[in-house]
């Protein structure tokens, strides 16, 4: 009986400590933020990723990648280059893409916002995301190569069934 009360009390206090609307998120130096509904998955699935506060003059890639060492380019990423923009593994988000990006790059919404479904998988190439660290990532696009200031990561974990 006492055990039950303790469990219920713990469950209530945990629920209060984590507000219902708080989503896992990552915030960059300029206040830009990405958030997802959850970071824990039992199997591969699509996760809705929201971004806001991004500098609309700098294009980004949104992708699911192996978490890199600090300061390094996130790679490899799921799905490889999405040249047709039809997969859900990576997205090029840019409001001022060059002419060749027409129809491929997705412009930012006002306020530097976006929302896309990103495919989360247990494996990225030979990497096993149940053992290796994988993450929803944002980085500057290829027009700002070497710019690591806009990197954001939300690590993903896979739970055992």
């Amino acid at each position, binding site marked *: 009986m006492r055990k039950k009360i303790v469990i219920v009390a713990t469950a209530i206090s945990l629920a209060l400590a984590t507000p219902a609307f708080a989503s896992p998120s990552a915030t960059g130096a300029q206040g830009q933020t990405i958030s997802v509904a959850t970071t824990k998955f039992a199997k591969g699935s699509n996760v809705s990723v929201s971004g*806001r*506060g991004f500098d*609309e*003059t700098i294009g980004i890639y949104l992708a699911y990648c192996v978490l890199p060492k600090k300061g390094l380019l996130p790679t490899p990423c799921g799905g490889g280059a999405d040249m047709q923009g039809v997969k859900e593994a990576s997205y090029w988000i840019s*409001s*001022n893409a060059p002419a060749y990006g*027409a129809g491929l790059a997705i*412009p*930012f*919404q*006002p*306020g*530097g*916002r976006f929302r896309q479904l990103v495919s989360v998988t247990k494996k990225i190439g030979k990497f096993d995301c149940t053992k290796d660290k994988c993450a929803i990532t944002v980085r500057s696009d290829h027009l700002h190569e070497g710019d690591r200031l806009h990197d954001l990561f939300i690590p993903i974990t896979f739970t055992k069934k």
Partner: protein
Amino acid sequence: MFNSQKKIAALVLGLVLPILTALPSQAETFAFASSPLTNLDPAGSTVNGGFTKFPTTAGMYMQQCIAPVGSARPATCSDTIQLWVTAAGGPGTTSPTGPIALKVAGSITGKGVTVDCTTTQCGLFFRLDHTAPTDTSEDKFLPMTFAKGATAPVLAADEITVTLNGKPLVRNVPSNLAYRADAKIAATSKSGLVITFTSLTPDCTYSNGTLTALKGKGQCALGYSTAGNATTAAASGNFPFILTPGNQKIIGMPKSIKKGGTKALPLETNFGSAITYKALGKNCVVEGNLVNAKKSGSCTIKATAAAKADTWEALDTTVVIPIK
């Protein structure tokens, strides 16, 4: 008699020379050195040079123009023989630290006027760019002369009219453009040639007839060009814009509420800023983004949202919703 003729000639020269050699009220600070500007081929010649000193205040336009009169800027400058030199970089610009090559011609056309530079004094005119449109401190005219000979065939100058939301734009004269404002660009050319637009700066984007400012501070430039054809000269130029903060709006406000009813108000402005609501009066109650109508009449709500530096203004507005 001969002496009096000399006096008259001296008097005339004394009147005319100060006009032809008029200098800006303030001496320029830039230094430009180039290949000779004399006896140029009227069929087309390239002036090669470079800046050894460049202003720090703004970029510069460098154009082939007729000689200025007095302190005014030249009345006619070529629509096509011009360079935009700026350290800011970007498409369509020339770096002030690199070599400068400008193809000049024995005749120029500007704003519908054609001038024969083999008989009219033409030269290179330097001025600060659109970021300092009224600053004439760097205005300078370097005269050029052309050798006798056939000039390149004179093509008719095109007349390009560009409008922003129906209002004509003036080349090299900045217009204001607010962050994410609805800015429809329309253009016509007298020749009927297709006009191509491109945003020359990353802070704006141009697509399908719409120019969009991605920031609320700084400058943008919209470049245009036509290809020209056998009878009409190619045309190009740019329209500068000064960026201003955007205006936040609330989209999707309820048009009415039933007495005793509750409705949700939008959580964010059109730019994604969180909106704070406060009921004014006792006809309704607001909690978070939910409004509950208590009495008949109208519900007056104050809505506020934060500004974002260099991007958009704060929102502070009052909304009236009828209670039915």
